């Protein structure tokens, strides 16, 4: 049911402000980005139409794009593990303690509300070597060889360090969602399983996880989308890392567009990010929702 007759002007009054701002700033630029991606353009001179050449170049002649894509995939898998898997474990932990749940939940959530810039600065200090940061001084006390683990400048470690910090920041966000979902599991389901003699682990695995399955899939898609476009943490923490060992797609797009002034080429990378996100999310949903 809707209220009375509404003339066009009333509807316009309510919807126009949001509609106009949103269209101008979100919708139209997407179209422009797709258009730019077909041109060779530095922003000042004339635009030269090159068709799909930018995309062909990305996959055939660009030495940084494919490694960046590879790093992004690794980064995304790490985020699924940290945010979805660990997040789910934390939600189980919360729901299995009898008291103080909201106390723990509120404090676990703290990293989510802190800015990425602050988190990165803090971790830069924690992982520092000169002067010795907290993490290495603790590790070094256990084994002196660990005093000089170069978390942020070692070619093999910097991508992992950035992935860890990103996971650390957002983990609790998914924990909160899983926790709410776990609370929605009806008591009679778990009671029935208990009467059948199932232990806590079996109840979690055979009753609760299947029940909240759609939340798990939805969260995976959210994490997938979030990490395929991850920008601030990898950029701020590693700046691409030595020899671009931690370069991801979004910072790479940024670099092409705003440092090298290749707006057309940068737009092609941006369009690829959207396409990859859509493909991954669709494939993921297909695989996991088909069985329902």
């Amino acid at each position: 049911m809707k209220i009375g007759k509404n003339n066009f002007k009333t509807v316009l009054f309510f919807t126009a402000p949001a509609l106009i701002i949103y269209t101008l700033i979100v919708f139209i630029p997407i179209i422009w980005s797709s258009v730019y991606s077909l041109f060779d353009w530095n922003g000042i001179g004339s635009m030269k139409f090159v068709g799909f050449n930018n995309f062909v170049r990305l996959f055939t002649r660009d030495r940084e794009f494919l490694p960046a894509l590879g790093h992004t995939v690794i980064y995304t898998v790490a985020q699924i593990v940290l945010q979805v898997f660990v997040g789910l474990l934390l939600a189980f932990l919360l729901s299995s303690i009898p008291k103080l749940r909201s106390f723990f939940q509120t404090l676990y959530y703290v990293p989510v509300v802190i800015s990425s810039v602050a988190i990165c600065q803090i971790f830069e200090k924690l992982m520092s070597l000169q002067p010795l940061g907290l993490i290495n001084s603790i590790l070094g006390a256990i084994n002196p060889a660990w005093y000089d683990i170069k978390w942020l400048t070692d070619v093999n470690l910097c991508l992992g360090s950035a992935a860890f910090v990103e996971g650390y920041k957002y983990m609790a966000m998914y924990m909160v969602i899983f926790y709410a979902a776990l609370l929605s599991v009806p008591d009679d389901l778990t009671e029935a399983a208990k009467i059948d003699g199932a232990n806590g682990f079996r109840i979690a695995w055979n009753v609760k996880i299947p029940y909240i399955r759609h939340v798990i899939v939805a969260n995976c898609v959210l994490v997938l989308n979030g990490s395929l476009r991850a920008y601030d943490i990898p950029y701020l923490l590693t700046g691409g890392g030595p020899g671009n060992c931690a370069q991801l797609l979004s910072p790479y797009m940024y670099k092409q567009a705003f440092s090298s002034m290749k707006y057309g080429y940068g737009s092609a990378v941006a369009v690829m990010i959207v396409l990859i996100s859509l493909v991954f999310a669709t494939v993921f949903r297909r695989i996991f929702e088909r069985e329902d």
Partner: protein
Amino acid sequence: MQQSSRLKKRRISTFLLYCLAILVLLIMVYPFFYTAMSAFKTPEEFVSKPQYALPAGFYLGNIKYVLLESDNPRYFLNSLIILVCVLIPVLLFGSMAAFAICKLKFKGQRLMLSYFLMGLMIPLQVCLIPLYLTFGKLHLTDNMLGVILPQIAFDFPYTIYLFTNFFKFLPNEVLESCVLDGCSPFKMYSVVVVPMAKNVFLTLATMNGIFCWNEFVFAYTFTSSKKLQTVTLGLRDFVGMYGATDWGRTFTTITLTILPTFILYFFLSKYMLAGMTEGAVKG
């Protein structure tokens, strides 16, 4: 006998779970505790003592410097102005659009909702290049408006989504009786709907407020002069200048920039957490 041993086993496992919960708590909170306590350390303490040592006393030199001699107060003011200019339009226009989508009658309502929700799937990086070029022509780069407008636009999808989720369940009888009393849609929105949706407004104000305070990409891309920098940009520059040498001042700056979010969060965490679960479990 068996009963008591089972009870004992249960107690032990509960105890272990609490130990685990406290361990996780340490991991999640200790870095921020460490940051805050390091703000009170003297420069010598960073060199002579291990990192985890507590400060010897309440050394206030760092705080004095950051508050009185650095540019940080200006960054705070900038961020505050941006916060207000983002929150008011987002909440006002967002709730108005959601109200129309849920409760007014017009063609294309569903389409309009999907159009807004599409924004949830769009990575903002796609819009960055065209926005940068357009803003350049309109003289909106290096202008606060250039940081404010994109944040408003990108906050709409989520804001409208949560508002529609709430307005859907507003009883139509209440609104109908308003109509019978001769109430116009404008009056209905402002006198009936907004007061009923107070909690949703609080939730969205908390979430969008924290996102806005922490915003980095738009401010970084669209502003260049120092006098327009926000706290996040200021923090990054400050650390770039002093980070390697002066840890005390760095930690003080970090502490001061995260303090407002901390305070806001601890008073309104209930609303923030409600918004998170509301948005995702149903979505």
